[in-house]
């Protein structure tokens, strides 16, 4: 979706938005973007994005903070790194999108992305609980947070995986889970997104 007739008052922009992302690896080069569009042309999901990668970079520089944090692109990115690989200015676009996701989640600007957020938080829960990701529990947790009935649509695949020994019912827990918990606690203390 483009915004051809959309007028944004300069007073409503956040010109320092770009500074929020300069700590992200690869994010320090956002100002070097030449708007060539190789990122958008290479992205396998840009067709479905309301702000393709090139427009994300332009919007960050224009200070359109709310538009960037509210776009669906953040939750469509598959982290395939094609944009980062091909960027002639070596801008770490994938890592910038990760950074934008974290800001959006921290500020609760995730209205259109409940499923992606549920996946991310379910995953984090797995690691903090056992140190490893038990795929079966991950999906159960994810569907309970989103749409438990959607599990029915997955039942057929689930049965096939189960019968082929690809869906163990119990997960493993690491011995050093206390180390993981200590690391989690310490990073909370250090802060940051």
């Amino acid at each position, binding site marked *: 979706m483009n915004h051809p007739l959309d007028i944004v008052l300069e007073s409503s922009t956040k010109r320092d938005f770009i500074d929020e992302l300069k700590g992200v690896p690869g994010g320090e080069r956002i100002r070097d973007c030449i708007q060539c569009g190789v990122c958008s042309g290479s992205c396998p999901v840009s067709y479905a994005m309301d702000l393709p990668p090139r427009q994300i970079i332009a919007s960050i520089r224009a200070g359109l903070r709310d538009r960037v944090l509210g776009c669906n692109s953040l939750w469509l990115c598959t982290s395939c790194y094609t944009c980062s690989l091909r960027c002639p200015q070596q801008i770490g676009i994938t890592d910038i999108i990760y950074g934008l996701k974290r800001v959006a989640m921290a500020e609760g600007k995730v209205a259109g992305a409940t499923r992606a957020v549920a996946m*991310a938080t379910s995953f984090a829960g797995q690691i903090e609980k056992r140190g490893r990701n038990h795929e079966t529990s991950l999906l159960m947790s994810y569907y309970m947070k989103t749409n438990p009935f959607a599990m029915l649509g997955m039942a057929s695949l689930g049965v096939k995986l189960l019968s082929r020994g*690809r869906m163990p019912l119990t997960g493993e827990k690491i011995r*050093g889970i206390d180390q993981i918990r200590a690391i989690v606690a310490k990073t909370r203390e250090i802060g940051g997104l």
Partner: protein
Amino acid sequence: MRFSYYPGCSMAATGRAYGESMNAIIGRLGIDLKELDDWNCCGATSYMSVRELLSYAISARNLCIAAKQGMDLVAPCSACFTILRKTDHYLHDNADLRRKVNEALGAAGLSYEPGSVKVRHLLEVAVMGDNLERLRAEVKSPLTGLRVAPYYGCQTLRPRVDFDDPEDPHTLDDVIKALGADVVNYPTKSKCCGGSLMATNEKAALRLCRDILLAAHHTGAHCIATVCPLCQMNLDGFQGKVNAAYGTDFHFPILYFTQLMGLAMGVEGTSLGLGREIVAAAPVIARHGTGPKAPFAGKEV
């Protein structure tokens, strides 16, 4: 060659056949893998979206253990490979991140010096040194006539690998050719399968899988070879949903490159985890007269 080995969470579950086939063939190539002691989940793409520092710190715990084991670290899963490798690189490049990650690791009595562990993909190990020569020497029943579409996926090659050309990869082609099979070329061989987008936006992810399957179909390939458990899961487990969504009739067996290696070495199918795939490989393999026919448990689904 000896390496530390990072299995990743899929190897005991959806990617079980990958682990089984790898274990069945790796010794024949003279490669010795020592599992990383008490490894933890790499965090994959999901954790990075929640908290950056934590995700690097959790991933770095594995690198600390690998540094103690004193060998290069091999990851067969492309997502694990990318995360572990990226963590080492970014800690090297970014002093502030390195300081904070080491502060967090310090709470667990650990610390990591970037560059002390070299992270490698299993595909990279397969073509390192004279390993391709060793592989050729181990081939007992060449996969002659089998047309294989090599699928590299995305994170095997990106953001920055040094063992292959990310825009025009050839290492998996080289392995398949060494097995005596025919390699087909197609434009989506390193395009993304969607990864975990399959759970959060199925429609978009199915389209990505369709693009891969369709391009492979046009080459007349009999099967697709993968090097990542998530790619295998999406292309295999969701192939039926692709067919339902797009009115196609794909029935591509999606095999791990290690399974093809095992078949060419004459290893029995069950030891290679054959039969665990959703789209059965047995008909394709039987038609081409490679490998033992009896042990396949898989049925046409």
